[in-house]
């Protein structure tokens, strides 16, 4: 397909899809957009699509189309349905609601009020962009997510798709491209924040007859789903960016390494590759130029460490994902020892926008050292769980409270955790820290890939460190001693502490070991594995000490240290707790205050949860 033909498609399709982004679009059509991201798909959005189509057919309505899209972001309110051009936002829709939406909204032209979303301030919101959740966001990487049908290349083309590639191939030299990326100030979104332009330059300068472009989509941070959402919602923007990178560094072959646990993303990305090939965008001598490029998917198979770039290369080559020692860096000796450029999904998702809008535009967003936006997967004890994209420099407080809607159930904010098992905890005192690479490192955490888990005051920090360490112990590749044995020993010490058997000496040894595991490990996994321990020790040492000295878990999470008692003042002697107790640990006469025999109690909390008088705690 010639470039002219692509341009034609863009022009026609853009007109047709104007209603997707224009409230006042001149059209008689309506598009019902249904989220088909993993979250909403899990809550039956495919059935919703099916029902809509069935009902429309039955009612012979032909000016309404049902479109599957990628993630809208507000996963907590899923499944989400949006009707355009009016941009009506329906939350928590069930397949049974479809009939009513068609009847009321489409036919009668009225809103289905009960499905409209309530904002955190209890205000009923009609339109997506009226939600507080969206107000402070700026969508660059997620620009097309929730707007286009990811399985339709023409929809992508309509919204400037493959226009950046066109610009690069027709009017820019390799160095021009690299300069643009460098000047934009874009840094790697995988976590470490290495300047992207520099990486491209190194790979371009490396000598080699064959070079590769690799996309790291092995999103392993538990609780992060930014990359998955991009692949599910806008796969072509990653393909286009990889092609631009290929042009810039002189590579004609690309690999994307995706977790096999992301079946929807894998299937959509494959479809996107197939379509790009069909439209002759991927292939030889693209648009009559000298540039050729093709792309293949490689599946991961459940190993967190494969997110580390050299482990990922090992895995693509078909081996155990054990990291290589650096140097040499992949830019010089990567896949099959050839110069290889590796960027993560979100990094690529910024490229096309930088090329089209210019480095100056991009670098005007963000802070001095961290440019552009960052996508976070906001989760945990926060009202608006979902995907958010904010300009660098936004504070944590803005994300958690303004966008996230604060902490539910009347609890207080305790910490936010970024960087997953490699990151650290950020306590309330640092809520006003602007999000950028340097500031987060300075307070003992890191940017990480974008997982942002909020925790309330019921969470025990020692238990949290145990959780993350348990993760790294499981995921350590086992190659180097400090990570293989050191993290295991750290976990053993923490387990001892949460059992109430810890000593002050243990704490000293733990800290010493943590520092040395950090210093001596081969790769990023081991070097950062102690971070959750070190940062909780830094901010919540008193909690560790309470476990050790007072044999007490202040948050009440560590089972071995909790003691469940009945408040004799509140107990009415109803006997319900006695019935619930699976081990008969509760004794007491009817109508008199009961007691728990703590020697028998297994702390299952069945009594706590069932006491009508809230007398047990």
């Amino acid at each position, binding site marked *: 397909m010639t470039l002219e033909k692509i341009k034609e498609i863009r022009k026609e399709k853009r007109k047709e899809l104007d209603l997707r982004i224009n409230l006042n679009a001149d059209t008689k059509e309506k598009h019902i957009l249904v989220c088909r991201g993993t979250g909403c798909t899990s809550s039956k959005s495919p059935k919703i699509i099916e029902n809509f189509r069935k009902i429309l057919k039955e009612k012979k309505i032909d000016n309404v189309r049902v479109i599957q899209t990628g993630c809208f972001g507000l996963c907590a309110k899923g499944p989400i349905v949006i009707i355009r051009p009016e941009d009506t936002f329906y939350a928590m829709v069930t397949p049974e609601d479809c009939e009513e939406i068609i009847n009321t909204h489409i036919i009668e032209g009225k809103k289905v009020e009960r499905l409209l979303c309530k904002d955190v301030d209890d205000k009923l919101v009609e339109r997506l962009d009226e939600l507080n959740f969206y107000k402070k966001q700026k969508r660059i990487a997620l620009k097309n997510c929730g707007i286009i049908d990811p399985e339709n290349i023409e929809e992508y083309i309509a919204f400037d798709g493959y226009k950046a590639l066109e610009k690069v191939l027709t009017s820019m030299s390799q160095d021009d491209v690299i300069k643009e990326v460098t000047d934009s100030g874009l840094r790697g979104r995988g976590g470490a924040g290495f300047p992207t332009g520099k990486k491209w330059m190194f790979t371009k300068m490396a000598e080699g007859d064959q070079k590769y472009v690799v996309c790291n989509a092995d999103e392993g941070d538990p609780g992060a789903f930014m990359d998955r959402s991009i692949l599910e919602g806008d796969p072509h923007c990653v393909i286009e960016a990889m092609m631009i990178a290929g042009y810039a560094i002189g590579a004609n072959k690309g690999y994307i390494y995706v977790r096999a646990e992301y079946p929807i993303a894998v299937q959509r990305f494959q479809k996107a590759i197939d379509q790009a090939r069909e439209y002759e965008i991927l292939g030889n001598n693209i648009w009559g130029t000298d540039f050729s490029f093709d792309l293949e998917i490689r599946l991961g198979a459940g190993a967190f460490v494969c997110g580390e770039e050299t482990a990922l290369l090992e895995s693509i080559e078909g081996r155990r994902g054990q990291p290589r020692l650096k*140097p040499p860096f992949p830019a010089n000796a990567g896949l099959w020892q050839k110069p290889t450029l590796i960027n993560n999904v979100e990094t690529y998702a910024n490229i096309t926008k930088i090329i089209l809008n210019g480095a100056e535009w991009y670098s005007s967003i963000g802070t001095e050292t961290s440019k552009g936006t960052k996508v976070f997967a906001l989760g945990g004890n926060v009202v608006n769980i979902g995907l958010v994209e904010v300009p660098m420099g936004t504070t944590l407080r803005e994300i958690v409270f303004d966008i996230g809607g604060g902490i539910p159930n009347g609890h207080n904010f305790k910490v936010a955790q970024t960087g997953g098992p490699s990151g650290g905890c950020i306590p309330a005192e640092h809520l006003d820290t602007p999000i950028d690479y340097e500031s987060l490192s300075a307070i003992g955490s890191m940017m990480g890939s974008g997982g942002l888990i909020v925790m309330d005051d019921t969470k025990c920090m020692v238990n949290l460190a145990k959780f993350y360490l348990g993760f790294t112990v499981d995921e*350590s590749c086992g190659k180097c001693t400090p990570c293989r044995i050191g993290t295991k020993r750290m976990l053993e010490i923490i387990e001892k502490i949460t059992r109430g058997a810890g000593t002050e000496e243990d704490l000293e040894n733990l800290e010493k070991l943590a520092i040395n595991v950090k210093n*001596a490990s081969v790769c990023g996994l081991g*070097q950062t594995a102690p971070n959750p321990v070190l940062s909780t020790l830094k901010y919540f040492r008193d909690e560790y000490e309470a476990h050790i000295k007072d044999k007490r878990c202040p948050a009440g999470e560590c089972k071995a240290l909790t003691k469940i008692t009945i408040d004799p003042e509140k107990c009415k002697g109803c006997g319900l707790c006695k019935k619930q107790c699976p081990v008969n640990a509760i004794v007491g006469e009817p109508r008199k205050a009961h007691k728990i025999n703590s020697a028998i109690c297994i702390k299952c909390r069945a009594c706590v949860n069932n006491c009508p008088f809230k007398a047990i705690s």
Partner: protein
Amino acid sequence: MSDMINLTIDGKQIEVKKGTTILEAAKKASIDIPTLCFLKEINEIGACRMCLVEVEGRRGFVTSCIEKVQEGMVVKTNTKELTEARKIVLDLILSNHQRDCLTCVRNKNCELQKLAEEFGVTGVLYNGKIQSHEKDEKSVSIVRNFNKCVLCGRCVATCKKVQGIGAIDFVNRGFESCVSTVEGKSLADVNCVLCGQCIEACPVGALTEKDSTEVVWEKLRDNDTYVVVQTAPAVRVALGEEFGMEIGTNVTGKMIASLKRLGFDRVFDTNTGADFTIMEEGTEFIDRLNNGGVLPMITSCSPGWINYCEKNYPDQLEHLSSCKSPHTMFGALIKSYFAEINNLDPSKIFVVSVMPCVAKKYEITRDDMSGTGYQDVDAVITTRELARMIKQARIDFKSLEEETFDDPMGEATGAGAIFGTTGGVMEAALRTVAEVVTGDKLENLDFDDVRGKEGIKKARIELAGKEIKVAVASGLANAKKIMDEVRAGTADYQFVEIMACPGGCIMGGGQPIHSSKERAEIDIRKKRADALYSVDERSVIRKSHENPILKKIYKDFLGNPGGHRAHELLHTTFNKQDKYKLINL
């Protein structure tokens, strides 16, 4: 650009060649950086983290065994932080190690023990869960005890890269990682060929030979049994190392003396067996050459190689010479000829072979290794095991008076001696084949083209106007290259020598074990090989067919080389072996 790099290590300025690692450069500055997983050119993976150093301007520690020097580099190897890190790494390894050092076969020859001593480790701080695996004692050659494994990967790399076998690999991940065969099967049931190179690579006691000293002691103490011992050529140039002597010292005389002290009834030289091998193999080769037999003919004296061929090239077995290996030939002769002339009941003779090899322990149990109706050889002990027996008998090895092999089978040729090194069998065979084919006396007996350290050596030899092409390979990864050519029909050699161990028997899996540092700094192979070549040079008779005892035995007992009786006693058969013996397929 200069090929030399200037750098500073611990304040000392040094100049080294470009491409040198920091570890090697430090040697030049008289600094011995500790290592554990490092095995030069074989295992350079930087996994153990003992060799970490600091480099000015670099974030974090640097892996000195891998990282190359750079101009102006300022390296520190002994800071407080490094010492603490190394101590903790050591502590962690020890915390997951079965620490029964006193009763470990590697006691006092263990790299981990040495490091612990050097770092003044007096206790283990980070105790916790310890790995627990069942010991694999099923194979007759090799014992694996992974409770001592330190996950250095030296055995894995040796097995995979040097030998091209890949019988063992890293499995599981994280703390559960271990080195294992497929599904944790015994080495006896997988593609392992029992060469024992993994034992040589192991820094600790996780891999050892299957001990056969007990049965030998028992027979030595049994008055009813006539115990004959024979020693392979490679043993005499390595045994001294077990007693602190310099690598490559020829201790033939002391070795014989010690064997006599141990109480063996006769001490013979396997080199004589090697002379018989040459006669039989040479005859077989000439026959194949003249009568359109299968070529190339490939030597069959290395049992590791035989296992490899039977498991991986079962379709090519007809290339193998049907000859037994020297010690089994010799064992058969001891139980026949020697028994006959001495009026001994062969059932009462117990033949012990001292070998540089653990695969030989398996070889003697093979079918068709009982030419006399009795097993040719009853027990094989390695050089290491012999050393242990000598030590246990409290014999002061170094001060022993030298003695000589017993008559009537003690006299061997120089040709027999060089069997112990790669190329030696070929060279010995050529000496005999050349004279037999041409009928002329050879002027120059040294075939330099087949000597040396290269893994594959090729040569052309003129024989009576005919050009013969030969190839010599040692190390099974090299053997594979030759065999792929043979299988593809592109090998244009007529005669091929293959030894399983890189460098030949002198580097066998039963030889004294040297640390990674010694292996990096000393050319052990060359020292041992030189010692064998000098035995050859000093020999009065250097051609197998001129060995008088051999001539006598053919004349009085065997008949012609390649004849009926020779075939009965000195030849064997080879059969396909299943590469994997997996149940529930």
